[in-house]
């Protein structure tokens, strides 16, 4: 049984304590499984484990893998948080991310007049990336409104439309003839500023921090955000309160799509100098994982994103130092998400915790009553 030892833990509600316990157990199971897999498959298990668990802290290069990945996961996590808070299962963020990246690159290459102005160029590029990303998630939302088409299905289809549309444009119009599948090269000024030498760490960090803060502020401290959550909690209730459910749902999806496109732009301008993506990146799906970890609250997103990014950075170092596949992290992530989503996982323990809490409260009350009678 989980018993609170510290005073601070005791003050938390049973539900919070239970969430922490669940999360901890799920992570431990996931990590142990990873360790078992590494030991089984690696030629030199000790070396592999070493890199898997502490690589990101070893030097600035490895650290930058961690940070760069975390920035993207944070952005996508916040994007999903906002859409899922409105209970809209729009899965179009893959498409938003892809076209967002492409748009940012094109903007940096072709917007004459702006493209050579430092700071302004990436800013405009990212805004355009966001707008394109928002359009991608808007389309399924409108299809739902107009013809009651399932958002989940149409948004999934949107992803492939975005990918092949983007690739068509790349090969037909924007390819640098000197390369196989790349656009022309971006100038330094069109990219995000890299402020740590010899790494790709860039100003995307600040964008991620700002987006997290604004996302949280939006959902919990603006009237529209409150409405988004009302719609997400119960559409009938929201309707009864006089909220235009469809409009609010569309707005949430547009905001999510905007952040998704922004994420693609940050990846493009922060880590690449040419656009050459010929498949979907998976960051849209990662956003869902992060949002599940974060209980749809942007406030919790950075912690979740840092955790997953740490695993990935460790795994990628491990893969070229010790030859273990990086896909291992997907297994770990999958296992953890599975346990977090399984409603009955540890529910017996929860019942016991609740029962103990209630019994303790009952004893307190009886003591108080007895005290009164004595007086």
């Amino acid at each position, binding site marked *: 049984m989980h018993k609170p030892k510290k005073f601070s833990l005791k003050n938390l509600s049973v539900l919070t304590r239970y969430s922490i316990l669940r999360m901890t157990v799920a992570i431990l199971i996931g990590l142990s499984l990873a360790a078992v897999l590494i030991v089984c498959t690696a030629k030199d298990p000790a070396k592999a484990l070493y890199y898997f668990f502490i690589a990101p802290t070893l030097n600035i290069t490895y650290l930058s893998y961690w940070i760069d990945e975390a920035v993207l996961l944070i952005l996508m996590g916040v994007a999903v948080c906002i859409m899922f808070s409105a209970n809209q299962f729009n899965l179009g963020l893959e498409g938003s991310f892809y076209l967002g990246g492409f748009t940012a690159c094109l903007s940096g290459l072709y917007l004459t007049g702006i493209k050579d102005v430092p700071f302004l160029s990436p800013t405009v590029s990212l805004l355009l990336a966001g707008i394109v990303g928002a359009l991608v998630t808007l389309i399924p939302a409108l299809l739902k409104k107009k013809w009651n088409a399932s958002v989940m299905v149409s948004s999934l289809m949107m992803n492939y439309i975005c990918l092949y549309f983007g690739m068509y444009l790349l090969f037909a119009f924007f390819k640098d003839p000197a390369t196989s599948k790349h656009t022309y090269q971006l100038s330094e000024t069109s990219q995000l500023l890299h402020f740590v030498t010899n790494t790709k760490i860039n100003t995307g960090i600040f964008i991620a921090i700002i987006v997290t803060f604004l996302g949280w502020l939006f959902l919990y401290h603006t*009237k529209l955000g*409150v409405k988004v959550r009302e719609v997400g909690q*119960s559409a009938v*209730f929201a309707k009864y309160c*006089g909220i235009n459910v469809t409009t609010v749902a569309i707005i949430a999806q547009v905001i999510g799509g905007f952040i998704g496109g922004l994420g693609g732009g940050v990846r493009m301008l922060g880590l690449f100098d040419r656009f050459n993506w010929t498949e979907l990146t998976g960051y849209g799906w990662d956003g869902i994982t992060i949002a599940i970890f974060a209980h749809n609250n942007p406030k919790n997103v950075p912690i979740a994103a840092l955790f997953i990014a740490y695993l990935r950075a460790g795994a990628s170092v491990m893969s070229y130092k010790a030859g273990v596949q990086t896909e291992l992290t997907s297994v770990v992530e999958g296992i953890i998400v599975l346990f977090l989503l399984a409603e009955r996982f540890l529910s017996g323990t929860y*019942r016991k915790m*609740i*029962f103990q809490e*209630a019994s303790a409260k*009952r004893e307190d009350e009886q003591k108080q009553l007895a005290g009164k009678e004595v007086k």
Partner: protein
Amino acid sequence: MEDYLVMKDITKVYDNGIMANDKVNFSARKGEIHAICGENGAGKSTLMKMLFGIEQPNEGEIIVKGEKVKLSSPIVAIQHGIGMVHQHFMLVPSLTVAENVILGIEPTIGMRFDRAKAIKMTEEVSKKYNFDINPRARVSDLAVGTKQKVEIVKALVRGCDILILDEPTAVLTPQETKELFVQLKSLRESGHTIIFISHKLNEVKQLCDRVTVIRHGHTIGVYDVDKVSEADISRYMVGVDVDLEIHKEPAKPSSDVLVVDKLTAFNEAGRKTLSDISFTVRRGEIVGIAGVEGNGQRELVNTITGFMPVTQGNVSLLGHDISKLSINQLRQYGMVHIPEDRNAMGVASNMSIGENILADKMDDPRYNNRLLTNPKNMKEDVDKWIKEFTVLCSSGEQRIGNLSGGNVQKVVVAREFTNFSELLICDQPTRGIDVGATEFIRNRMVQMRDAGKGILLVSADLGEVMSLSDTLLVMYGGQIVACFRDVKNLTEEELGYYMLGIKKMTPEQIGGAFYAQA
């Protein structure tokens, strides 16, 4: 006589942390009708759910016929001879009575369903215990009282000799109740044990042998019914003397607030659910609508509150045609609404009390600075209203799903009654909540009436509509079949005839409900 069924030191804590039963003791003998009394939220239903295997106790033991049992599911409970008739019937409407009765224990010839045997089984049991039901009838065509009989027969066919009836009379008219009691008494004669859950004390006095009183999850005591008075039981239940009598002055109605004119509606199958409904609600009066559930009340409320479009006829709020208004506009014009199902519509149970109270008020400039919300004003009002409406909670940040039904309903009332209002639609405003909250909400409604609001009250609780209404309408089969201006001298019996559709007033008499000038 020894105890046939014993529940000993039963404790149950629900997942939301509410301790519904705290070391509750209960026992029943063979061949008795044993009442369990307690107000809403006292823990009666929880206790019975554990006896029927729907919930499992955290502590305590259950002994049936001398054998200690673990009732892990209703199937196990039925194997031990325990049957339950729920308040909301568990029947498949599209199947016949016989098919419903044998559902899950189907007799077969080889691979085929043996319809003749099913009908025979149903007939045998219903004849033996004098239930007048037709095994070939479709359940959807049956009256509420008959559906209940089907539920009882269902339990009897499965060999249950302990029957739990969860507030069986709540959905019945006075006439149907009488009939039910005769049948229950004959079941008692044949050795069945009946556990009768109710808070209608006159019924307990009429029907039962003993009564166990539960209050706030504790057993208060077991009494022989003929040795205690109704007043005694009521005092044991609530702990203090309560006054459920409503004190109100005669209404002083003035101008029209809501005018419903020849409203007709159809369901998806094209059947008429409302036909030619006309009535007026004026400022300063409470118009009550009585009727057995499912006679068009829901459709009427849904239409007035903007959840269903007006298909035929006119509904106007203060002269505005509501078919042209959104729910938001209706609210702005002063319609507030206590919905029938508070958990599905009235609150978002995962959000906090504060967020629920302010849910429809987020556009109010008072709660917004330029871009952000104004937490200070929000907290101020939430705290004020929690106090004013006596919501029992630790703070406005508490999750509303962790409150008891009565407190949840108080939050709903707090949200609705603090809005700008002209017309109050109160749909089952006190269903399933404790006496204290009931008294509070009813008095609030009278206060609102005296402040000049128009109130439309829809309730299945006869006592409630009769004590609150200034004008009382009765709905049957989607029509208004009666209009009483003089509610005080009306008896429940008389009202029952109209609710059952046995009596019907002439259109001229009913026309008294409609004042609007043409």
